[in-house]
């Protein structure tokens, strides 16, 4: 199973953000999407999830994503968005269980036992099983981020798209997140190898979690290769228009 993007352009209204993108992501890959603010990283994830209309083609397992029903697309791809608003204080358990909607398909909210069991496993994987009766408005930003990650895992899709999953996490949880993502990608939770596509601003996280880098600049792919080459100072200077060697940590 793979995602194939051919001659894809997309944007919002009349402004075109992504221009003529060609990309292929195969099963089991761990891909870092890099680029400066406004380069089109989030838009790329949204297009590949089928949430934004586009020109060109984006196929998952040979089927055009924009022609799939939402539930069908969600069974293949789970996306954890960059911003997560909470308007009503569901409990952690209720929130993670909602992630099983596409796979369990129950109408009135009673998910099958297997889905409940899997959701509990996802909570354990993300270290939020002790918080399951807490309400979302009682959690810290980092705890909420881990709950939403557990909900994304619970969707049980072979492709996992994460938009800045390290937001609000302290250094310990950032390191743990990488371990969990590696475990998830290896298929230890779901039983099948999974594909990870993630946006990070913390390049150390990108290095730890991913094996391939796709670097964007002004809506175009300017690099696609192994993570070590993608994170070399000369490439980063090109991507960010900034002397990264003067910044510690690179």
């Amino acid at each position, binding site marked *: 199973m793979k995602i194939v993007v051919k001659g894809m352009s997309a944007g919002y209204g009349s402004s075109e953000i992504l221009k003529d993108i060609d990309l292929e992501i195969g099963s089991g890959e761990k891909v870092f999407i890099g680029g400066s603010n406004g380069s089109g990283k989030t838009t790329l994830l949204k297009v590949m999830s089928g949430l934004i209309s586009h020109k060109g083609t984006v196929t998952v397992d040979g089927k055009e994503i924009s022609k799939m029903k939402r539930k069908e697309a969600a069974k293949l791809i789970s996306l954890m968005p960059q911003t997560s608003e909470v308007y009503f204080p569901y409990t952690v358990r209720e929130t993670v269980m909602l*992630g099983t909607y596409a796979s369990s398909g129950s109408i009135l909210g009673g998910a099958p036992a297997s889905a409940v069991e899997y959701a509990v496993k996802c909570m354990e994987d993300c270290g939020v099983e002790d918080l399951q009766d807490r309400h979302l408005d009682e959690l810290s930003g980092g705890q909420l981020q881990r709950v939403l990650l557990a909900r994304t895992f619970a969707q049980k899709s072979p492709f996992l798209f994460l938009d800045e999953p390290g937001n609000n996490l302290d250094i310990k949880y950032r390191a743990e997140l990488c371990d969990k993502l590696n475990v998830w990608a290896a298929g230890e939770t779901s039983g099948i190898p999974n594909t990870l596509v993630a946006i990070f601003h913390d390049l150390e996280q990108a290095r730890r979690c991913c094996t391939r880098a796709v670097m964007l600049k002004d809506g175009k792919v300017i690099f696609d290769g192994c993570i070590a080459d993608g994170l070399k100072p000369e490439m980063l200077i090109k991507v960010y228009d900034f002397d990264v060697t003067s910044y510690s940590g690179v």
Partner: protein
Amino acid sequence: MTKKGTGLKIAISAVLCLFILVLAIRQGSVYISLKDLFGIIGGHITGKGTPDGVEPMMDSIFWTIRMPRAVMAFLVGGALSMSGACMQALLQNPLASSYTLGVSSGASLGAALVLILEISIPVLSGFMLPFAGFVFGLATVVIALMLTSAIDRSVSNTTVVLIGMVLSLFVNGMMNLLSTLNADHSKQLILWMMGSFSARGWKHCAILFPVCVIGFVCLMLMSRKMDIMSFGDLQAQAMGVDAKKTKIVAILVCSLLTGVSVAFTGVIGFIDLAAPHVVRKIFGPSHKLVIPMSFIYGGAFMALCDLISRTLLSPREIPVGAVTALIGAPFFAYVFFASRRKRA
């Protein structure tokens, strides 16, 4: 919340709701014992007529005036509250309701035009008022959505609510103009804008009841989608919910519930905003509980408000919309801020 705890809360709520309904039927200038009341109900249901020992006039007062009025108040309160709960979830805005989105005002304008212009479509016969309420309520919210998409390309939920409120005020202005230009209907229209259950009978209940059942079933079938939509359109789409389609179906259902209710009783605000919030504080935000309990709490609260509206300054009647706001606002503030303080 444990299943046992939820079950107990539901049982207490059901008993409380039944108590308020019986109170709303019994209380007033004429009083009746419980035995006679159930005798009258049993007599009419079984077709045996007025039971022994009950005067025909009492039977008439309770069966043809008090009961349909209380049942109508309950159904309207329940319908408006279910609609409010749904709107709040879909628009992720605690201030969203059929009232703030202009559905109530639009429905009211439709019903007023039917009354003033004496419009009649033979095919619809007795359904003309609810039909007009539904169509105008739906038209208002559709206009609100069209204006929103013209102004705000992202169709943000905040803009939808703001435009809805502006439209609601505009339509209310049109209602005021109509009542000024039509002196003959002026009093009727002013009362309409404040809401009343006066002279509502079984024939009105017979129309509203199936509408409530249809609305309830549709919203319950959508309850899990509403839970997911509560997290925002983007997250809902990512989790497999077709946000646009869900919103369209939900708005249709809410317009039906609100439009038909308002067409019979006039505009009654606040209940659709407050009842779902109170329910969420007690039962949590899951819509498989919020929808049915909003119906029960909204219905019971409306029946209580109608009882107060007709008995407090008896024989004068206070518009029920004024009562819902006068009682509901401080109660809502207490529930809301008390739980915030507890959490802090």
